[in-house]
């Protein structure tokens, strides 16, 4: 057993994390992220789906084959900004025994007509060469916007190229997984949502109270602190995203630094610092929910966003 663990660890150390560097205009390798699912607070349903569709099929392919399930597929994470979609993707890279490619679409865009499509194709080809591989496409709405709204032919070409690559994965059909993230799924071209492409939608909501307390703890770790009651701050920060909580911690640090400059001593972050910072900030997710509610109420032909309405109802959001 320990030999197997050693071998597993040795293999994991060999796995690559690849991203497209826009300054060098090429694919570069980076260090494998240290984050794993253990570092992601909450989102149990999301983690369960990813384990079932991505991680376990690689670990136990014979079991899934018995059910006629192939390893692979794609997943679309959507939700308000700053709630952990990208972080979750990094945790997948840390968790999964596969190579990981992180694509930021703004990075692959080029002013030369046709080069963006070429860059995109290169990325998918690289993924196929490095199977098993997870491709994470951040800000999918930047690429896969509705083609009907695109006036320029070359913009539509990029969406077409993405559709081609996704369908290409189907025909190769082995061990290349695609996770995409977006704040605005309603802007996506409907063709991206067809079966075999991004037809599995997962809503990534803001952290719950317990998760907020955990996040605050993680963000404050290693900083000089007084006696803090994080559960109270977590209670007062309903609907705050992870990014909002990080901002609160930054604001508190600033208050402590200001005191330090006056006193000349290291000043710990106090409960009052956090309370004041939380009071001065509003949850940035509320704007997203206001928009999402309109799309879910008036423009949700396929009933894709009903769980957003249910979430809003459960949390008393109008």
């Amino acid at each position, binding site marked *: 057993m320990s030999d197997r663990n050693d071998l597993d660890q040795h293999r994991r150390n060999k796995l690559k994390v690849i991203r497209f560097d826009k300054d060098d205009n090429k694919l570069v390798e980076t260090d494998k992220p240290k984050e794993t699912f253990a570092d992601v607070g909450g989102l149990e349903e999301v983690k369960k789906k990813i384990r079932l569709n991505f991680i376990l099929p690689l670990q136990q392919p014979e079991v899934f084959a018995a059910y006629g399930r192939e390893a692979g597929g794609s997943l679309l994470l959507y939700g308000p900004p700053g709630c952990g979609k990208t972080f979750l993707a990094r945790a997948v890279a840390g968790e999964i025994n596969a190579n990981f490619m992180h694509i930021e679409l703004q990075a692959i865009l080029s002013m030369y007509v046709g080069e963006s499509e070429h860059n995109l194709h290169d990325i998918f080809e690289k993924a196929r060469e490095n199977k098993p591989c997870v491709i994470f496409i951040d800000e999918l709405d930047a690429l896969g*916007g509705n083609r009907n709204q695109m006036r320029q032919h070359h913009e539509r070409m990029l969406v077409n190229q993405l559709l081609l690559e996704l369908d290409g994965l189907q025909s190769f059909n082995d061990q290349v997984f695609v996770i995409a993230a977006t704040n605005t799924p309603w802007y996506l071209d409907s063709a991206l949502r067809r079966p075999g492409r991004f037809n599995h939608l997962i809503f990534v909501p803001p952290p719950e109270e317990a998760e907020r307390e955990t996040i605050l703890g993680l963000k404050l770790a290693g900083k000089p602190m007084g006696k803090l009651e994080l559960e109270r701050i977590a209670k007062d920060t309903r609907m705050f995203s992870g990014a909002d909580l990080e901002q609160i911690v930054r604001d508190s640090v600033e208050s402590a630094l200001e005191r330090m400059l006056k006193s000349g001593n290291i000043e710990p972050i106090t409960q009052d610092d956090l309370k004041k910072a939380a009071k001065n900030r509003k949850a940035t997710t509320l704007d997203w929910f206001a928009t999402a509610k309109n799309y879910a*109420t008036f*423009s949700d032909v396929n009933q894709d966003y009903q769980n957003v309405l249910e979430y809003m*109802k459960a949390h008393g959001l109008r």
Partner: protein
Amino acid sequence: MSIQLDTYSTRYERIQHLLKWKKYKEASEEAMALIREEPEDADAYSMLAQVFWKMDKYEEAHHWCGEALRRDPENQLAWFVKCISYYEQKKWNELKPALAEAMRVDPYEPFYYYLQADILNQKGRYQEAKEQLLQALELNPEDAGYLALMSYIEAQMGHFRVSKELEEQALRLESESDNVFLYLAWAASRRGDYDQEIILLGNAIRLAPDEKQIRDEYLEALQKNYKLYRIVLSPVKLIRQLKPWQILVSWMLAVILFKPLLIVFIILYIATHWLTKLLVHVKIFGWRLK
């Protein structure tokens, strides 16, 4: 030199991409970077103005338009952003001279005629609005937005058949514009074609559920699904076809001859309006506040 040009056109393209994706913060950063690189380039300033206009930050947009026009008094983009910002702010006094100058600088821009037509339409000067819009259509005959506005103006003037034809033309050209659907819906409502109004607004709201005006219009149009509401609306339909003096005379006669019935009708109209509003609210939002 070619490297500088490449960088410039790359940034310019990126700004346009970012605007299309509604990533305004990133677009403003790119535009600021462009200004730092090309501090005497009027286009860089007018692009930043364009970004602020898209963000509905009109004062900033005007400021950067001013900077662009200081460097190039005939910068077309700056004048365009200036005019459309005044229009959206409903600053008609400021818009008038700006529009005159913009049209002098760029006489072949049909959008300026469209703006003038829209303003005249709002003031009830339909014939003048039509004349302006005809000029816009001469410059760009296949713009669905202009055809939609023309359909609305013709409906206002009582030319229902022409209005309907223009609606068909507009829809053949463009089926993914919330603005086109909105104007056509108003035209349909003016013609008394409430079923078509609901269909058109349904399309508009599917495309732009985030637009408050479209949401409000759609919910109001849904009230017309109820026959009782349409019945109490029918006198309103008739009144719209009358001239102002005819409305006044009819009102005076109605007060003298039918006072009790008139009061009953007004009460019935108000009650029907609120009852159908409640029914629509429950249908769309359920039994909860919006």
